[in-house]
């Protein structure tokens, strides 16, 4: 369950990662590792909730994956934006430090 709390010009997010997440299927057998693109799905979901309408990612300016995320981890972080150009900066952390950071551009999903 993803929690999104508006804060300033962005938001705080919290996601308790469980082994039931379908994203772990086949990634990898006996060694579940969250696919890196799951962070992008989290951002699109958070942007949708913040805007109150369906949002999607049209560009990934940068994405850096620094730490693996596994079942039982707690992902929390900050979002800054989106600004007038749709740029959303993010820093998602797990115990020990940043798991993923970068900048994406979000747009209306059905524009």
């Amino acid at each position: 369950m993803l929690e999104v709390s508006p804060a300033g010009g962005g938001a705080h997010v919290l996601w308790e990662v469980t082994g039931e997440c379908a994203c772990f299927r086949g990634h990898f057998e006996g060694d579940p590792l969250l696919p890196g693109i799951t962070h992008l799905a989290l951002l699109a979901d958070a942007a949708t909730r913040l805007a109150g309408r369906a949002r999607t990612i049209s560009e990934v300016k940068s994405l850096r994956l620094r730490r693996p995320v596994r079942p039982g981890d707690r992902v929390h972080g900050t979002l800054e934006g989106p600004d007038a150009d749709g740029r959303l900066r993010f820093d998602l952390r797990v115990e020990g430090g940043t798991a993923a950071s970068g900048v994406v551009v979000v747009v209306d999903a059905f524009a």
Partner: protein
Amino acid sequence: MPEDEAAARLPHSPPARLVHSLRERTEGAVRCRAHIPLDSPWVRDGRAPAFVAIEIGAQATALLGAGGGPGPRAGYLVGARDARFPARSLPAGVDLEVEARDAGSAPPLRTCAIVVRGPDGVELATATVSVYATQSGG
């Protein structure tokens, strides 16, 4: 590289495996057949978010680096940049094509410019992805 061999080189299993066979290998590049399964967790109403192209590109990049040695090699997506998605979503259940071209690798880190095309050859996504490959099976 036939489909079975391509599958053996990637540690992903269905529905996470998105690259299924290598169509062509040239100096510093591969061209592969990709396919997003309809039962993929990313698929809704027959389509997946365009950012799934980054995972497709990462798997193709891993195949480019899977030269010798038996068994799968773990490859971890560690970064992406300059990803553009002219299509907001990707069709699932159809053959796609992905091309990964070396863009300055320094093993075990491999960086490639990737292009994902639809069945009609239209570009759906472009990006630069970086994958960290282990030296042995994993």
